[in-house]
């Protein structure tokens, strides 16, 4: 191994820290259900909801937090949230059925994203709020409601293409939403369909980490709502979407050190830190670094509820420079948010068993093969670099360390790498150890999982603390009243 180990230790809050230390329980899980296994922690999502609620309270803002269901298929997490006062944001027919079945009443559900006729019908029939993507979709919805004699449907108008005066804030083009310059035409359609749709408010969802871009969009929404009101409509909500982010790593210093060394490796000033010298988007052009780092900013000083707080504190230049939170409040608007990843922060981990540890020779990385496919642990697919925690197997003594390893998946495929990064572990793993990948609940559990090569998709269990003990059941068996839960 060259030089000092470059760790990227995961940030573990108390529940995950306790779960990772419950080695007996974790081994029992993989013994019973095979490897890999996803473990979700439903009680954490309720705590995360409370963090968002406290930001609402601090700004006196009424409104709703809608969990973006697409980030995890888990029933346990959804049902636990149904037992709170949160809402849910569904993006498919299946998700809507799942949410209704988990106990969400229609007033707590919004339907967004691309919609097929069946999804649209069930949404309209049950009376959930529909986030309308375009004037054409509004027409389609109106036809459906009239044809089937349904009650008027609450709609949010999803907008895009916000413009600024002064500094031009560029944004990636979105395939969703109506450009604000076509707002008047959309509002004419809303008025035309006044008998069958009830415009609750406007919405946006920008895929960016930039607070400035979202502040521009929110300011644009306030202007759009004013257009609604001047037409005599009575909208009452702004939906700012999600994208509040998660900080995955425990220490900023480790992230800084790693990215500096990666830069040096790409420029050829140190040995590679990746399989095949992969640069994660960076490249060397005659000694100068080009490209951009295609990685999720794994350590973020402001993420989740704190990010929402920062967004709400941004001033709106076109409205006298007042903070957005004050403007929302005094215009009497409800604030809707749709956090996915941020609500799932610390809500689970993925276990994979070590099958083989192969030596390549002195100074070379160890090749570690896991009983899991890369798509079962999809952190890399989202650009998240984070070390797994070694959960020692029974009877395994402390091995030598630290060691540098490559983590391979179980597919018969060259590219089935759990990560292209050289991972540093504090000690040498042995077959039978488990690697626990923390914080996988947001997008990294089932979003990308396949059944390629007849290999199974990971099982999912829900776990909760019962005094000092961790208890669990299959994800699908979990209900907020599951026997033996502490809440009983």
């Amino acid at each position, binding site marked *: 191994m060259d030089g000092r180990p470059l760790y990227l230790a995961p940030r573990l809050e108390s529940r995950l820290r306790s779960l990772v230390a419950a080695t007996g329980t974790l081994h029992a899980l993989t013994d019973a259900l095979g490897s890999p296994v996803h473990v979700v922690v439903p009680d954490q999502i309720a705590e995360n909801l409370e963090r968002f609620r406290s930001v609402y309270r601090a700004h006196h803002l009424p409104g709703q937090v809608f969990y973006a269901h697409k980030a995890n298929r888990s029933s346990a997490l959804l049902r636990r949230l149904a037992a709170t006062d949160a809402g849910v944001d569904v993006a498919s027919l299946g998700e809507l059925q799942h949410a209704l079945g988990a106990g969400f009443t229609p007033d707590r559900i919004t339907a967004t994203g691309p919609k097929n006729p069946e999804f649209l019908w069930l949404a309209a029939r049950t009376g959930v709020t529909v986030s309308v993507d375009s004037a054409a979709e509004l027409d389609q919805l109106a036809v459906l409601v009239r044809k089937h004699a349904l009650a008027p449907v609450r709609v949010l108008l999803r907008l895009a293409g916000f413009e600024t005066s002064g500094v031009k804030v560029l944004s990636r083009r979105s395939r969703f939403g109506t450009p604000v310059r076509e707002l008047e035409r959309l509002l004419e359609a809303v008025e035309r369909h006044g008998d069958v749709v009830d415009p609750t408010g406007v919405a946006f969802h920008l895929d960016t980490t930039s607070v400035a871009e979202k502040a521009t969009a929110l300011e644009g929404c306030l202007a759009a709502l004013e257009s609604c009101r001047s037409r005599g409509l009575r909208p009452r909500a702004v939906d700012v979407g999600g994208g509040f982010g998660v900080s995955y790593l425990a220490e900023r210093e480790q992230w800084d050190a790693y990215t500096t060394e990666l830069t040096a490796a790409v420029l050829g000033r140190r040995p590679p830190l990746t399989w095949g010298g992969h640069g994660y*988007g960076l490249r060397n052009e005659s000694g100068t670094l080009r490209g951009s780092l295609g990685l999720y900013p794994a350590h973020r000083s402001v993420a989740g509820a704190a990010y929402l707080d920062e967004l709400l504190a941004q001033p709106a230049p076109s409205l006298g420079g007042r903070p957005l939170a004050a403007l929302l409040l005094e*215009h*009497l608007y409800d604030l809707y948010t749709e956090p996915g990843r941020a609500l799932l922060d610390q809500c689970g981990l993925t276990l994979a068993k070590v099958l083989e540890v192969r030596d390549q020779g002195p100074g070379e990385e160890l090749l570690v093969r896991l009983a899991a496919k890369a798509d079962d642990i999809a952190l890399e697919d989202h650009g998240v670099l984070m070390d797994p925690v070694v959960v020692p197997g029974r009877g395994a003594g402390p091995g030598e360390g630290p060691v540098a390893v490559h983590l391979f998946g179980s597919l018969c495929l060259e590219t089935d790498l759990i990560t292209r990064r050289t991972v540093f572990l504090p000690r040498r793993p042995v077959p039978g150890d488990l690697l626990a990948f923390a914080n996988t609940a947001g997008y990294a559990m089932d979003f990308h999982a396949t059944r390629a090569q007849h290999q199974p998709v990971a099982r999912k269990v829900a776990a909760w603390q019962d005094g000092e003990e961790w208890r669990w059941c299959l994800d699908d068996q979990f209900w907020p009243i599951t026997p033996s839960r502490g809440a009983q």
Partner: protein
Amino acid sequence: MRYDSITEAIGNTPLVRIDPAVHGLRTIDLYAKLEMLNPFGSVKDRAAWNMARPLLPEAVEHGSQVVELSSGNTAKALAVVAGMHGLGFKSVTNRMRVPEIKDLLLLLGAEIEELPGQSECLDPTATDDPLTLFHRTLSASGSAYLHTDQYFNPRNTEAHLTGTGPEIVKDLDGRVPDWFVACVGTAGSSTGVARALREEDPSVRVVGLVAAKSDFIPGIRTIDEVQEVGLFDPDTYDTMESVSADEAIEGMLTLNRRCGILGGPTGGAAYFGAVRHLRALDEESGERRTAVFIVCDRVESYLSYVRQRRPDLLGRPPRKNSPADLSAAEVGRAPSVTVAEARRWIEADRPLVVDLRSPYAYAALHIDGSVNIVDELFSELVQGGLPFSRSRPVLLACPVGEQSARYAALLTRMGHPDVRSLAGGIIAWRDAGAPLVRD
């Protein structure tokens, strides 16, 4: 001195000795090269002018727009130069974090484009970063741009190789300083000066300063960010050291308060980094030696930067009649009325209804007959005394009844006999189904 054009005033900046009583070095004379005294306010005037000058005649002929990736001083200088030649200027940036600079650029007629932030739901296979797209736009056929390309343009370095560097040697009576300390941004000034000094005397030692990685100091790149700079060559520097934002401000304060040099945080970082580096070497030799650092620009543009990081430095005396000095008990005792009581009261006694929300919110919906005095203005008004006659009852309304309670308590303390707060605010009013109007 008389000039035909302001651009002739670029360069020939003073080299000023720092009082040893301030820096405490005993064997080393420390000099500041005051680049802040260039006509547009910074060291970048030299590079901007040198890069743009040969391209201007053709640009004027085609009416091209001058473009640069800059979040600060280069943009400022180019905006001025472009304006002088009747050309537009556009600054493209993802790093413009100093609001004063942004406003100044707009004032100078510049167009500013901020690049989009990183994707939250990342697609690791997407290789088209915003900068690549920027360069593609520039090279698209038919586009009329004058791109000065400061991070790669050798004329950036040349401005300092032929200007700043030789000026330092001349002002030191032909001697090359023993150390040259510079912050690394585009690397133009440090590379150019270092090369000029080494040509005279290869024994000069060059210290490059970068910002600590998670910190932000205007005009300085972090150790990773400098790798993206085409002009950056690690061999230019004998050592690279990092400076934190706090240290930069500390150095800036010393320059501002003790030396009479009104330099900004970049100059402060250079001063701090120079003294820190030299202190260890002060005793190694008995003979007198010299060191030079660059003060890149002025402090005035960075007041909000300082306010954000060191609000204590801008502390102001407490204000009179401020709702902030009310105790929780006083606010709790503030007279208030429920929506139902308020409606009866308005009907019976016609109190003055004051809506403390912003004019935009007021214009959208408000209580009929109310007047709008936005909270910021109201807090100014009460500093001078009661803004209403004591004989006129007043109902204060805000979004949720919190601010109105504070001001009701304050006005009561100031001697108003009948001021009441609308409990629950305009939101409670709406929720009770009471009428709100648009005028």
